[in-house]
């Protein structure tokens, strides 16, 4: 029997960007998949070689527009380690608080759009309502909703953060997560579209280099937050699920949001006890010679492990910047796990991996 070649994308509403999947179909069953990336390439790595460190800092948020703080942190951390800049303790707590809020916003957007891919419309309005609170809070503190430019080398831009409002938002989200679970978790339509579909075994997940919630849903205990120094004084649990199907990836993310709320509350408790009003603005312009050397910094982003390689030869501009992002590895595993599944399950599996295409292409 003849096989049919089908193009999925590049412009498809549920690919969160532009991803082209070349599917070879035998009837309704997929026999081979070829993901094609590169439609959103903005040369963010090459751009670093022609811009100074301060000029490149606003660009870093644009690697992944849904979780810009993580990328800012990775780049700032690399620069600070290379140049031996001390970051004060309160700044580390503010950084953790903002990163976890950003993780909440990112997971909420994933939840809404994933349910939209599966055909449920109303959860999207609810998750976007809560995400709007978080994003408005970011706008109030940093000045913009997505491209923050708030973390700087040696700390944060300013310490005028509205802690009461953050506490109110976080409490509200914690209550609303229960409501989402009421609607989604036991729904028979959702269960039949996600249970036992797109199973990634432990070995397969490790072989293809998955990280983050996708790896933890396969039952591997790996969370880089537990070895990051800025998370040392904070208590949190690592969420694990053993099945490795779409449903367990959903469960891991839902419970991770609750853990994020728990971490943010600890940060707010610490920050409320210290006086932040006399802290000066942190806008210094580096005129000294940059240190030579190379460094590899990491952070646990919502879509997996994010790493930033930075090499400096003592000039005002970086010699080389390289990003390792989680979405790239989630995209290439599609080649393996989409083989033998039905065409109607493609978006269910692909959506559960939480891929954001700008992060894949950089």
């Amino acid at each position, binding site marked *: 029997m003849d096989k049919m070649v089908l193009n999925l994308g590049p412009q498809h509403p549920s690919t969160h960007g532009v991803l082209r999947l070349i599917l070879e179909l035998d009837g309704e069953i997929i026999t081979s998949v070829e993901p094609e990336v590169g439609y959103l390439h903005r040369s963010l790595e090459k751009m670093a070689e022609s811009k*100074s460190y301060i000029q490149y800092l606003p660009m870093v948020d644009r690697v992944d527009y849904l979780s810009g703080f993580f990328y800012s942190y990775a780049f700032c951390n690399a620069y600070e380690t290379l140049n031996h800049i001390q970051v004060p303790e309160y700044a580390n707590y503010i950084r953790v608080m903002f990163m976890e809020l950003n993780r909440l916003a990112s997971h909420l957007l994933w939840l809404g759009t994933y349910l939209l891919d599966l055909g449920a419309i109303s959860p999207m309005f609810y998750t976007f309502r809560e995400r709007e609170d978080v994003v408005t809070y970011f706008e109030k503190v940093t000045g913009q909703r997505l491209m923050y430019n708030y973390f700087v080398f040696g700390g944060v831009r300013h310490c005028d953060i509205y802690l009461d409002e953050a506490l109110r938002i976080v409490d509200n989200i914690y209550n609303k997560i229960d409501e989402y679970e009421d609607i989604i978790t036991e729904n028979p339509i959702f269960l039949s579209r996600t249970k036992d579909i797109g199973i990634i075994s432990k070995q397969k997940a490790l072989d293809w280099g998955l990280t983050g919630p996708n790896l933890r849903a396969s039952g591997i205990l790996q969370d880089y937050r537990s070895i990051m120094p800025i998370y040392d004084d904070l208590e949190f649990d690592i969420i694990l699920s053993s099945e490795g199907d779409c449903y367990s990836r959903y469960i891991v993310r839902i419970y991770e949001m609750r853990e994020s709320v728990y971490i943010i509350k600890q940060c707010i408790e610490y920050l409320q006890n210290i006086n932040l009003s006399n802290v000066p603005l942190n*806008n210094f312009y580096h005129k000294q010679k940059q240190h030579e050397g190379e460094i590899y910094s990491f952070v646990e982003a919502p879509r997996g492990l994010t790493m930033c390689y930075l090499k400096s030869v003592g000039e005002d501009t970086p010699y080389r910047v390289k990003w390792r992002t989680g979405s790239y590895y989630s995209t290439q595993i599609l080649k393996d796990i989409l083989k033998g599944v039905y065409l109607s399950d493609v978006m269910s599996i692909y959506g559960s991996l939480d891929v954001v295409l700008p992060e894949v292409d950089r």
Partner: protein
Amino acid sequence: MVKKIYLSIKAILKGHFTVLKHLFRNSVTLEYPEVHPFLNHYFRGRHVLEGCRGCGLCKRVCPSDAIMIEKNDNNYLNKYVIDYSKCIFCGNCMFYCPTHSMKMSNDYELAKTNKSQLLTDIYYKGV
């Protein structure tokens, strides 16, 4: 089988009840042209320049090369043009200004009919 059907109907009814609760909640949408959102003073909108000496540090830290500074024969500032078709509103020019003369206002409605209107001279020359 019967248990499964019972559980399914129970879960769907529970979900419907949760959705139904939203009928009695306040609406969260903003009717935009009539109602404007609240913006804090940290918001990064259109630039405002006052008391600039023309040192050019903002030009050096601008990531998208959107600033053009023109001086006259006496080395005084004559023109300070921002190209809003290039500007990404990162706020670097404001953060690194040594005299704090660059501010960013809450004005965010920047749509123009002509591209040349986006080249804006923001230098305040006084009365």
